[in-house]
């Protein structure tokens, strides 16, 4: 007990001592004639927000001249490893919000930057130095900018700035740096078209940085779609129901959603709901908007699919004593699903692409990342990279739709598997018919069996066979 108490006491004493030291250190700051307001660095990580050492960036240093002082020159000093060499400095002197006409010259010399002014800066003025093209130490870490200044009494020390967090180079940045150096890249980029749309450095950066956005796009549409299918089916059934009220609700819902642009729906949901104090996470709201929008289109697809099933099947079902729900779920819908699969997949592709509209309301999806990168780089390459990310998903789906459509078309016109043809049977039994036709025949049959035997049968409506 007494031990711990003593420990606490010692701890308190240490704390007091530390505070005293801190105050002692802090106190002289107020005595500076040129107060360091801040030093910040522009993030120079391609597609990121980090400040990387050893790569050119811009340092912004601000200081205020205190009461009764005149400052005629300022020298900024970087820690060992940093350099001002090759930098250019923009000197801005402000009184309040207005620019003062003070000229100055900046002389970089390795870790030092000396800025001298044509006339001393008066009290109350804010001095802003923007040093473009300087480099922080390559190994990263927290970097403070210190230095000195000259006032009427001679040279004085500057307070160290609050540390700037810098990071060491990343593999991606290293790759970009190598690409920057490569002669073929320079030749490639000298072509205005290739340089603007297919800049290799930016392609590398974009592929690395767009991935989270791409995954979010996929996540949004993959989560939204099952909801959209269920909603769409409900509204499709409502639209063909005999109850006029249900029909009316479905018609209003479908027509409003299909008759207005998704872009507008997004704006209404994202800006409207918060105004009614309904705050939903942006990504969740994105899922909701996409699901609701897609549900209207799916409702129409399902309705058309259901109505494409011949009336005779309803009659046959009712003659077997099936009620409405049995008819729907056992006979009509299984056939509908098969027929609408291509259209639904196309709609899925549309919805996936439509997630790009969410970028306008700040959802961090693919388009948003591409826009950010473009606005930082002033180059179109990130959009091309985004296009590739969209195509990775849409091209295989388009291919799949075409394939399924073909198979369904075949089966609808009765092109499915058959008992072996006469020629093949003959060839098999005789074993000596001309080889070419028989081989063709066998191949043909085998292909058909494979295609239809496996994947169509689960979808094939059982009831139809009964009928």
């Amino acid at each position, binding site marked *: 007990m007494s031990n711990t108490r003593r420990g606490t006491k010692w701890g308190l004493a240490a704390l007091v001592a530390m505070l005293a030291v801190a105050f002692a250190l802090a106190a002289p700051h107020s005595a500076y004639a040129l107060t360091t307001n*801040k030093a*910040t*660095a*522009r*993030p120079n990580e391609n597609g990121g*927000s980090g400040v990387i050492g050893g790569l050119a960036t*811009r340092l*912004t240093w601000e200081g205020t001249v205190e009461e009764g002082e005149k400052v005629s020159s300022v020298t900024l000093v970087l820690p060992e490893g940093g350099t001002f060499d090759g930098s*250019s400095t*923009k000197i*801005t*002197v*402000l009184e*309040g*919000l*207005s*620019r003062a006409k003070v000229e100055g010259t900046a002389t970089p010399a390795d870790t030092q930057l000396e800025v001298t002014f044509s006339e001393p800066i008066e009290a109350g003025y*804010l001095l*802003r130095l923007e040093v*473009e093209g300087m480099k922080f130490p390559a190994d990263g870490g927290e970097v403070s900018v210190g230095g000195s200044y000259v006032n009427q009494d001679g040279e004085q020390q500057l307070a160290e700035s609050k540390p700037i*967090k810098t990071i060491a180079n990343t593999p991606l940045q290293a790759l970009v740096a190598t690409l920057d150096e490569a002669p073929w890249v320079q030749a490639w980029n000298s072509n*205005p078209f290739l340089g*603007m749309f297919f800049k290799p450095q930016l392609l590398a950066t974009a592929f690395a940085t767009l991935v989270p956005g791409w995954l979010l796009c996929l996540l949004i549409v993959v989560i939204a779609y099952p909801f959209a299918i269920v909603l769409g089916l409900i509204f499709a059934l409502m639209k063909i129901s005999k109850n006029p009220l249900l029909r009316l609700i479905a018609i209003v819902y479908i027509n409003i959603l299909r008759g207005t642009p998704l872009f507008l729906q997004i704006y209404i949901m*994202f*800006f*409207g709901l*918060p*105004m009614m*104090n309904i*705050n939903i996470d*942006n990504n969740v709201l994105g899922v909701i908007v996409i699901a609701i929008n897609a549900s209207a289109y799916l409702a129409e697809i399902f309705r058309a699919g259901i109505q494409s099933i011949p009336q005779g099947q309803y009659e046959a079902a009712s003659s077997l004593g099936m009620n409405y729900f049995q008819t729907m779920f056992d006979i009509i819908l299984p056939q509908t699903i098969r027929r609408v699969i291509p259209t639904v997949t196309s709609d899925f592709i549309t919805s996936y692409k439509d997630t790009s509209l969410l970028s*306008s*309301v*700040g959802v961090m999806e693919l388009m*948003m990342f591409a*826009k*950010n990168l*473009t*606005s*930082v780089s*002033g*180059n*179109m390459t990130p959009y091309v990279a985004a296009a590739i990310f969209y195509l990775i998903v849409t091209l295989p789906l388009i291919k799949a739709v075409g394939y399924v459509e073909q198979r369904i078309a075949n089966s609808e016109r009765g092109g499915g598997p058959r008992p072996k043809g006469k020629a093949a049977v003959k060839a098999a039994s005789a074993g000596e018919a001309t080889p070419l036709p028989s081989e063709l025949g066998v191949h043909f049959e085998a292909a058909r069996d494979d295609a239809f035997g496996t994947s169509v049968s689960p979808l094939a409506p059982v009831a139809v066979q009964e009928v």
Partner: protein
Amino acid sequence: MSMLTRRQFVQVGSIAAAGLLAGCGSSGSDAADAAPQAADGEYTVVNEGKLTCISNLFFPPFESMNETTGDPEGFDIDVSKSLAEHLGLEVNWLPSQDFDTLVPTIKNGGKADIAIAGMTITDARQAEVDMSDPYVDSNQSIVVKAGSTETAESLDDASKTIAVQGGTTGADWADENLPNATKKRLSTIIDAMSGVQSGLYDAVVCDLPVSRYQIKMSYSDLEIIEEIPTGEQYGIAISKDNPGLTAAINAALAEMQEDGSMAAIEAEWFGSEL
């Protein structure tokens, strides 16, 4: 307005067409007048006899679209008209485009002669395009919902969302000075301010003249919590392939300062504020 009969309509139409033709004729002669100038100033324009301008038209009071006609209006539009007048050209405004596409568009050339869009002169932009001499001073500001307790320090937190317009110096400022906050880059400052109004974002960082004007005109429930002196200056972006036009624009800007037309435009859009 009374209904026109078909005959009257045809007459009116033909008069209008005649006027239009006359207009073409006179613009043609303008171009002819401008031709010798072009010869000694050595500049080219995309459309004969016209100064074709692009901008993002959602940046009042510098650029906006008239509520009823949809025509561009604002400080920069008046500057462009006066510039065109001084150059002996006709002003031609293209539809609004995103701010961050302006510099690439001018750089690639062929679409527009100048981008005049409340665009700060920065080294990064000067690496891509020529910037004219400065014509307006600007600063940055942080805008939040009125009555909010946020400060510049409290906003630098991972839980905060800062809306900015993509490609602007405000976006750069937020990246540099609020590194921990989430930044949302939007297409227009209007989206950003509406978002703060509805609580979607915690703050907007944008040019001070714009935030002042917007709060005065339409967003009375927002307030500026910090006026950030950056001393930045707006310039006009011109393709590097057209140095003659940059020289001509700079000369025209200087003339406008001298003959008072710039002061008149400032008075119209900023009153005594500037």
